[in-house]
């Protein structure tokens, strides 16, 4: 059945993005038109790409096409298989939401900022992402990969008049190039083994790689992809770069751009490198645990709403890596069924995180749009003027905390189940690693819940803490529709998971040669099971239904009771002092204080209190409080590294005397050495 127009729809989507990019550039004189073009064309492209992904899933067989470019090694070869389709679907869901959201969001840029340049980079980014997910040629992949990084750089530094933004952009582009360098070396290694730069030849050569070469390729690719994904300790750029971008771009960056790293891991670790040894899986699992726990611990200390969300991206990448690592280990020890479940857990969490993180960033964008600040200590009480944004943000917060019955719970449940199974399926030290990873996942989940109680509670509840959040208005309707679409996706994927599960069949079929979707569904189609008899089962649909069924009589009971006595409104207890004010409220810093003290070994918190007083120290006139935590990775790892590089560069300066004779001598010596090397072979 090769009749569905997958390729055509895909090409149309690509064309829409390309046309959008140049149309935006062309309309630079008319900002209103540029805004409409920017959002409209992205919406069209997103819808078309989503359609292509659905058609591809319906068709079930990969679609390949290859257009020779005339340049040696390089060809426009695409492979629209299940993995590509899955990531393109994820991208399309986000692209549609962000495009709708941007209609309203970009309005404030009109006549102030260059919307047409923004639109150009935005479309190029979407285009490059689509190509990254479908490219089947190393050169095409690398070019798309680089373009993604450059377009993202253009968008991250959109507010370039701000020094912090430029600094973050620089860090981002440096890390992106280290990552591209690793990728280039990795591809060189595989090209040498496979004899061609087509992915198909890598796949053919994969099983015949020697151990050392396979290990080298794994390390290079893992480095490249984990820099992109923001895995700890390669994460430093992420919390710097994501918050400073415009919010719709932050949503795209955290939602899908970092997922290109996950895509790369799925593509290469399961497909092109042959069966990786168990230690590779262990490395992925351990770094996953580290990213999850440290990511959420750093998130807790943030009171910049968008930086907090950026740290949560690191946490969730960690959770995805736990699933991937478990899948790699299961594959090599001969448990394909478990490997498939772990892989589904990882991929499903990738999709879920893309959706709820995008939702949360868009929510944070609405808050920023209405109040002009990202500082939670100045926010508060926004649930009254912005009820819809608050509701969407709340759903996102519940989903990201992994609470039932929403989608985050389902993928974390699957991750738990695969970690639990790992104890029985493996031997030796690896064995004990699984339950420890499981308990760390529990810690992560609970800390994430604490963090989102803080994020939602401080931002949206109680009284406004600063002038910024006093006279605010709800975001425009288009922004609410964009968020509403993602909110529905969170709820739908949570409650209706068993209907969505078959999508993963072709994915696991492709990567592991096994379809387990049918095994995972029990109890007349709405119960998720782990596939083993008497194993764990869960049904989010029934949980949701059960909550509603139990809710009805409870509400009735209280309603009958409360009707007899009027419910009065009164002031909150203020300890007898007149009038509760915003100063009495708990702050974000105070909320996370117990955890800051408990984990002080990690944070190394420093605080400074200065009190000004006239007569008695007990009646201070003014108190100055300052508190900060130590950025451990920057201080312990990156600063020494930076100093080392600077030191080497200074030494290197000795041979760069500026004398042309010396340079000519260098060139000559290099030539001779190269000739000698070549002639010896």
């Amino acid at each position, binding site marked *: 059945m090769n009749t569905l127009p997958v390729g055509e729809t895909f090409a149309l989507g690509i064309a829409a993005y390309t046309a959008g990019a140049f149309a935006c550039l062309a309309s630079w004189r008319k900002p209103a038109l540029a805004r409409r073009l920017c959002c409209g064309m992205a919406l069209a492209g997103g819808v078309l790409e989503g359609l292509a992904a659905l058609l591809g899933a319906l068709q079930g067989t990969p679609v390949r096409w290859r257009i020779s470019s005339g340049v040696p090694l390089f060809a426009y070869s695409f492979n629209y298989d299940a993995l590509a389709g899955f990531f393109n679907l994820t991208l399309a869901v986000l692209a549609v939401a962000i495009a709708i959201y941007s209609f309203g969001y970009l309005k404030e840029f009109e006549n102030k900022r260059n919307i047409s340049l923004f639109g150009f980079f935005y479309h190029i980014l979407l285009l490059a992402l689509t190509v990254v997910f479908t490219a089947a040629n190393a050169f095409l992949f690398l070019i798309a990969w680089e373009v993604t990084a450059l377009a993202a750089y253009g968008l991250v530094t959109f507010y370039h008049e701000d020094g912090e933004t430029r600094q973050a952009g620089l860090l981002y582009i440096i890390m992106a190039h280290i990552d591209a360098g690793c990728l280039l070396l990795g591809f060189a290694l595989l090209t040498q083994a496979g004899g061609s730069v087509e992915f198909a030849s890598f796949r053919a050569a994969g099983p015949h790689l020697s151990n050392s070469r396979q290990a080298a390729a794994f390390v290079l690719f893992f480095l490249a992809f984990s820099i992109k994904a923001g895995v700890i300790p390669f994460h430093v750029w992420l919390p710097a770069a994501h918050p400073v971008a415009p919010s719709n771009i932050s949503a795209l960056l955290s939602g899908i751009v970092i997922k290109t790293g996950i895509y790369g891991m799925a593509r290469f670790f399961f497909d092109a490198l042959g069966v990786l040894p168990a230690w590779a899986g262990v490395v992925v699992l351990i770094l996953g645990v580290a990213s999850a726990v440290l990511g959420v611990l750093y998130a807790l200390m943030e009171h910049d709403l968008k930086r907090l969300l950026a740290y949560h991206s690191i946490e969730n990448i960690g959770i995805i890596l736990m699933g991937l690592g478990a899948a790699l280990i299961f594959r090599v020890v001969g448990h394909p069924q478990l490997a498939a479940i772990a892989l589904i857990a990882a991929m499903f969490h990738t999709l879920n995180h893309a959706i709820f993180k995008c939702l949360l960033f868009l929510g944070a964008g609405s808050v920023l749009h209405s109040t002009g600040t990202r500082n939670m200590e100045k926010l508060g*009480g926004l649930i009254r003027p912005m009820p819809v944004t608050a509701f969407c943000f709340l759903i996102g917060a519940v989903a990201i905390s992994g609470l039932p019955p929403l989608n985050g719970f389902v993928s974390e449940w699957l991750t738990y189940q695969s970690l639990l199974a790992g104890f029985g399926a493996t031997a030796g030290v690896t064995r004990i690693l699984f339950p420890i990873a499981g308990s760390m996942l529990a*810690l992560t989940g609970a800390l994430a819940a604490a963090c989102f109680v803080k994020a939602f509670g401080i931002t949206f509840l109680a009284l406004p803490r600063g002038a910024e959040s006093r006279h605010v208005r709800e975001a425009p309707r288009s922004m609410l529709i964009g968020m509403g679409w993602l909110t529905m996706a969170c709820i739908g994927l949570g409650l209706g998971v068993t209907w969505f599960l078959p999508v993963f069949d072709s994915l696991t079929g492709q990567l592991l040669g096994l379809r387990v979707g049918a095994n995972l569904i029990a109890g007349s189609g709405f119960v998720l099971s782990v596939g083993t008899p008497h194993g764990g089962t869960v049904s989010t649909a029934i949980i949701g239904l059960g909550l509603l069924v139990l809710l009805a009589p409870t509400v009735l009971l209280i309603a009958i*009771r409360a009707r007899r006595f009027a419910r009065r409104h009164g002031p909150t207890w203020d300890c007898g002092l007149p009038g509760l004010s915003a100063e009495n409220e708990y702050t974000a810093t105070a909320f996370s204080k117990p955890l800051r003290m408990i984990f002080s070994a990690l944070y190394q918190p420093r605080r400074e209190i200065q009190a000004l007083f006239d007569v008695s120290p007990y009646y201070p006139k003014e108190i100055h409080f300052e508190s900060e935590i130590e950025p451990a990775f920057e201080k312990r790892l990156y600063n020494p590294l930076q100093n080392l590089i600077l030191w080497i560069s200074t030494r290197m300066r000795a041979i760069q005397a500026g004398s042309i004779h010396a340079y000519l001598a260098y060139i000559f010596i290099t030539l001779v050495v190269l000739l000698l090397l070549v002639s010896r072979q």
Partner: protein
Amino acid sequence: MTETLAKSGFQLLLLLLVAPLVSGVIRTLKARLQTRRGPDILQPYRDLVKLLRKGMVIPDTASWIFPAAPYVVFVTAALVGLMTPMTATDAPLSLFGGVLAVVYLLALGRFFLALSGLDTGSSFGGLGSSREMTISAIAEPAMMLAIFAVALGANSTNLSEMARSAVSQSWRFLAPSQMLAFAALFIVVIAETGRIPVDNPATHLELTMIHEAMILEYSGPYLALIEWGASIKQLVLMTLLVNTFFPFGLSSGWSVSELGAGLFFYLLKLLLLSCCIVLVETTNAKMRLFRVPELLAVAFILGALALISTFLF
């Protein structure tokens, strides 16, 4: 379908009725052990009835989160109760959520309760929420390790399967791994239900309160819902402890005679566990907040030892 509904109805009734009783028994026993007379064991029912009859005051600063939270707390606790085997090995809704769903549904209730604490705008609420989320976060890894140790024995996270496997080897609790896991889970249950030495349910002193600080602004029927929900949660956690480790007397079917016997043994086991809790509460003083992590670290280590010993023995 109708059978599941009938079982659910029965178990729901049991939950709603037994939960306040357990709180009452603990309170009375504790008073007796401290040579006080104390309230009689039916006092919690009277409290609930009285609260349900009262009017309520809603803080001016509160949003819809404040009235929503009591419902979430109550409903999640009740639903979790239906997934847990109480008198019979097969719980009515155990197919639809195992021990992970139980832990996370309780976390959902806590999430909303903590939000309601922040919603009032009082510093007490924020203080309570902050502490509650902190303690639950550090209790969670220990809890999960202990649960893993038990789930590995049963090869399932489904609570009915876990109970069935416990019944099939009823002396398994003597295995070192099970004893260690029980100890770990016992500490976690103490922390999760807010009992001494972690929290004092009877205090209203700002320096020490956790749960009470969060719900300070609630009154009337909403307070009743929260109190009732909290006692159901306590009952469910205690049930998990007694039925997964000591499955004696769990009935395998739902006939009237089996249920009677099951109920008798269940209440007996609860009484014994209540005695243990009372002993712990009476012989310990409440810990300083920053000592609690040490206690939970002990639970974590016990859980890890439990896991390691599952493959040593």
